[in-house]
């Protein structure tokens, strides 16, 4: 899978927040083989490098880091946070979150497009956290984004893919744009479904971090992602309404 020209081996991405400990976090990455770790800078940064010890532990995971602007509610905040993240992690990759609604953490589509444009102009490689809205996706691509991160459901809900029709439409409209289903996943089966639908990767955090055994759950998600991807590549059969017998019924007393 290519994201902004970089080859990423795993289609599973994990967040790094809310784990019981950094050791459990590391074990979750080890068992899942996740290839990308998102990391939040805003809450910990405090204008200094107070979170440095934790960030060192995240760097030690040995995976590609994707800093995010989690918790930013305005374009300015998100842009400033992205610039800080670029310095801290020496990467131009940024997962762009501009939150429009404090309670549901729903993205602000207007601020998102504006911030995406400012950041791509500044040389960032933007991964926008967006809804499944096709028009919004179009605007984000216009703004210079080469990857989209549509939500499955609002952050932290674990509801899975709540608008399957919308996600299918989005996938079909932009078949060549790498898309990562981000947020709202609670179970591996939901991640498998996103893969079966042709999404390139999934990103999740709470479902793993807040489970009773994060490392086991991370591995469960990794296997589901692999299963879903295999199914997608294998060109699944078309569902049909009537049962079709796979062996001939001639000679059997099927009418008796």
């Amino acid at each position: 899978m290519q994201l902004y020209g970089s080859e990423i081996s795993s289609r599973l991405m994990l967040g790094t927040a809310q784990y019981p400990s950094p050791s459990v976090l590391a074990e979750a990455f080890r068992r899942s083989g996740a290839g990308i770790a998102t990391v939040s800078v805003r809450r910990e940064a405090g204008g200094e490098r107070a979170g440095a010890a934790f960030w060192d532990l995240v760097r030690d995971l040995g995976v590609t880091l994707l800093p995010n602007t989690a918790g930013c509610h305005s374009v300015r905040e998100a842009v400033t946070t992205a610039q800080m993240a670029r310095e801290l992690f020496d990467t131009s990759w940024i997962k762009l979150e501009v939150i429009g609604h404090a309670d549901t953490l729903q993205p602000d589509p207007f601020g998102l497009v504006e911030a995406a444009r400012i950041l791509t102009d500044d040389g960032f490689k933007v991964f926008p956290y967006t809804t499944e809205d096709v028009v919004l996706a179009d605007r984000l691509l216009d703004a210079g984004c080469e990857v989209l991160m549509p939500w499955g459901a609002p952050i932290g809900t674990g509801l899975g893919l709540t608008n399957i029709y919308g996600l299918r439409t989005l996938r079909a409209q932009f078949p060549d744009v790498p898309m990562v289903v981000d947020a709202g996943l609670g179970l591996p089966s939901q991640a498998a479904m996103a893969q079966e639908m042709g999404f390139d990767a999934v990103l999740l955090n709470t479902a793993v971090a807040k489970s009773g055994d994060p490392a086991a759950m991370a591995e469960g998600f990794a296997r589901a992602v692999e299963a879903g991807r295999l199914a997608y590549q294998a060109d699944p059969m078309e569902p049909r309404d009537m049962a079709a017998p796979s062996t001939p019924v001639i000679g059997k007393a099927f009418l008796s």
Partner: protein
Amino acid sequence: MMRARVLGAGVAGLCVAAELVGQGCNVTVFDPVPRPGPHGCSWWAGGMLAPFCESETAEEPVVRLGQEAAGWWERQGVAVTRQGTLVLTLGRDRRELDRFGRRVAGHQSLDAKGLAALEPDLDGRFDRALHIPGEAHLDPRAALAHLRTRLESAGVAFVAEQGRPEGLTFDCRGMAARDRLPDLRGVKGEMAVLRSADLRLNRPVRLLHPRYPLYVVPRADGLFMLGATQIESDDRKRSVRSVLELLSAAYALHPAFGEAELVEIGADARPAFPDNLPRLSRQGDTIHVNGLFRHGFLLAPALARMAVEAACDRTRPEFWHED
């Protein structure tokens, strides 16, 4: 008589000193400020002795060893309130209570009536709760002050100096020991103290919330300690956001908190190792007792006992860490 030095007069240092006195040692405690106060992170603790609730995220040793804590503090003459812990959620987070109940042993489910019987002031506000009767709480500042006085009367000398390792030394300096323990990191916690004459709680209350968890620990004189924030940072700044979260959650728990007096806001960084479990380690004649994370009052007694056993018997106890 065996002589020992203790570096650091926080909860770990005082507990180690108490265990050493129990073994008949001649003990000197060094700390630039050798009395409990805002310079040490135990000052800001909640004082919940809640090993079962902690198992929601902490590993098994915390639950097992934490059960020693209430009895240990009582044997030191510290007032410990054994009224258990109450766990609540706001309406739309009810399922958090189910999850918590699945993970935490030793709880009883309460309906509205059962809750009102335990905490009359919460009557009518919640229709479900969990009660964990085997838990306790104490006032950390009173406990530290009491323990220090008791140690002084037992002949322990307190010296207002940084202190150097010399002979048998127990290094209990928390974050200040980072120079010797590079794996240590700070995990920031923020707290507020409110005073309300309108509200009475008999036991700590935990409000589960996916984003803004809260605990409220009642103290004497109408005081309530609010806490729960946990941030990967070693700064000690008191942030508006954390205080907003704590106060909003408290207000959601009971509107009487809206009328309370805001007595104090505090923040400090708790020393933690990457697995968030405490560690004992030896460097020469020095034994390090560190990484108590959010479990200072809960685990310091067990860690102190194990550290002193390790020194006296040259045993390699649990949490023993070799570089």
